[in-house]
């Protein structure tokens, strides 16, 4: 066992896979000797050298194009896009090239690659370095989308993503990089498409991901004091989506709350709400409520950013109001 931060878990997960498989390579801006702007790749350059852990120019299209070309010819690249907001400058490679090419070529090509990226707010970086883009990725047929919420899951899901034969967008909540937990020694491999029930309750079910998981858990503790006992489901991977676990946990309590960091319109919670509404309508005891960031670009000031992103108190308030309404 070792205390590990979320950011250290990223390097550990990658190192675990690079040791196992020589075809795993890592590229990105400042990821080599510098260890990444979020220090997510510290130690990799020293262990695996500059050929396997390679710094790139500020060329996001080239980074992802290179990952795609390498994946289609037998390697398993991991590419870093420093901030997920920057996907906007290379989204063509993700959406039109990587995601569509297997289908278009009738299965002639596979793309076993991982694109990792710092995602979301909480760091007061302002609108161009803070957005949660998991719903962008989720909307694209052909992409798998993983959003871990703790160090242990980071390692296991990174391993699963690297071993997966399909392209995986791996979104790391920047707000969680410094969080710590006990992590067992030895190889850790998880599975994509498996949600985790991280708290079991009887009154309502909160479905959430990433940085909103610890907030939802804290909110659940406060709600318990009010007599509202919540189940919390950490979805972990949006595609593939573990609908079975979500449906089971929502039908057990009869209520669904989604807690989402993304701006409201077409956030991933809307898709889950729609699945639940279609398949579980008669088991519901009240309306589905989505707790999200409003449909605004994120402001920089700490006071404003804290108002925008769902906070523990807002989650408590909205759930309590709805449950008592």
């Amino acid at each position, binding site marked *: 066992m070792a205390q590990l931060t979320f950011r250290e878990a990223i390097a550990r997960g990658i190192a675990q896979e690079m040791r196992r498989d020589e075809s795993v390579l890592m590229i990105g801006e400042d990821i080599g000797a510098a260890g990444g702007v979020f220090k997510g790749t510290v130690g990799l350059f020293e262990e695996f050298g500059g050929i396997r852990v390679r710094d790139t*120019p500020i060329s996001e*299209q*080239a980074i992802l*194009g290179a990952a795609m070309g*390498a994946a289609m*010819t037998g390697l398993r690249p991991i590419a870093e896009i420093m901030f997920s907001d920057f996907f906007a400058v290379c989204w063509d*490679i993700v959406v039109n090239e990587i995601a569509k090419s297997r289908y278009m070529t*009738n299965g002639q090509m596979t793309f076993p690659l991982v694109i990792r990226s710092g995602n979301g707010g909480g760091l007061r970086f302002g609108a161009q370095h803070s957005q949660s883009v998991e719903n962008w990725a989720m909307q694209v*047929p052909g992409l798998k989308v993983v959003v871990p919420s703790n160090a242990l899951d980071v390692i296991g899901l990174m391993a699963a993503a690297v071993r997966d*034969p399909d392209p995986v967008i791996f979104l790391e909540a920047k707000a969680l990089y410094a969080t710590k937990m006990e992590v067992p020694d030895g190889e850790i491999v998880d599975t994509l498409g498996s949600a985790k029930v991280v708290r079991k309750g009887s009154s309502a079910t909160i479905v959430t991901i990433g940085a909103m998981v610890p907030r939802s858990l804290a909110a659940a503790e406060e709600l318990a004091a009010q007599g509202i006992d919540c189940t919390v489901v950490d979805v972990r991977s949006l595609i593939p989506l573990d609908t079975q676990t979500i449906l089971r946990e929502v039908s057990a309590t009869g209520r669904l709350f989604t807690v989402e960091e993304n701006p409201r319109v077409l956030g991933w919670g809307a898709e889950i709400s729609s699945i639940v509404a279609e398949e579980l309508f008669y088991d519901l005891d009240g309306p589905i409520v989505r707790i999200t960031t409003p449909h605004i670009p994120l402001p920089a000031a700490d006071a404003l950013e804290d108002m925008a992103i769902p906070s523990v108190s807002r989650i408590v308030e909205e759930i309590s109001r709805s449950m008592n309404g």
Partner: protein
Amino acid sequence: MTISSLDLDAKLGLYRSQVELRQFEKRAYDLFLENYVKGTSHLSLGQEAIAAGFAAAMREDDYTFATYRGHAHTLARGVPMTGVLAELMGRTNGLMAGKGGSMHLTSVEHGVMGSYAIIGAHLPIACGAAWSAQYRGSGQVAVCFFGDGTTNIGAFHEALNFAAIWKLPVVFVCENNLWMEYTRTSEITAVEHPAADRASAYGLESIIVDGNDVDAVFEVAKKAIDRARAGEGPSMIEAKTYRQAGHSRADPGKYRPDEEVAEWLAKDPIPMYHARLLAEGATEAQLSEIDRAVAAMVDLATEEAKAGETPGADLLMKDVWADGGSAWRN
């Protein structure tokens, strides 16, 4: 004119390859007019020498990256005509069973690593394949074809810098046919030679070749590919040529001055090469035998493609994922 190192047999091969591409494209156009080829298609009529010359200089396991104007580059790597024509016609015996269409021809088993229809996107992807070859030590080279208009998009510049700093085994080939779609490239480009004048910005030699002279193309291709294979890094070649037909579909290309079209028709690569081969000892009978054999080949491919089946619903939901399916939830 470049003195070619090829013997007459090899040159007859280059002649045949160009004739195949020419006759194929003419047939594709006819089938488009007859509504067998739906959607769109972009022909390489007039540009065949580039595809033929490069393919002849490539090793069997080298990689081709093409654009939506990619029929010629696909066929030149030895991909059977029937598969290409059937793909254009949306049949199950098409290269991708109709799921890709004219703009996305791919045949991994022939090293044709895709045809890409977002301008410039495939230059970074070709870098990736070259990076992979470099890492694996396989000696493979990636050859990436694109148009003159493509030199003004960001991905072009990102890819060139990337290839240069990592000394990647990739050869970038700009087929400068003077026009992007309906705009003359010189009117919207800061330099006279859209690729060659940019080469020095990335530490590369400025190389221009007569893209209508297959021998010259072959020589310059061989040099660049050998260089890349030897670990000496990327090259960029600008091949001057002309698109004899319109940009796509049934575009008559009326925006081009008649004199310009006439001037370039007079420089048509195939009659030019025909004359050269006669001067170098080939016989008229040899060459017309090639023309005749290719015509028969195109007819047969047309029949086979037309006989292909219309894809069914089984294909619709197939191959989003590597497991062959399309499930995104359990």
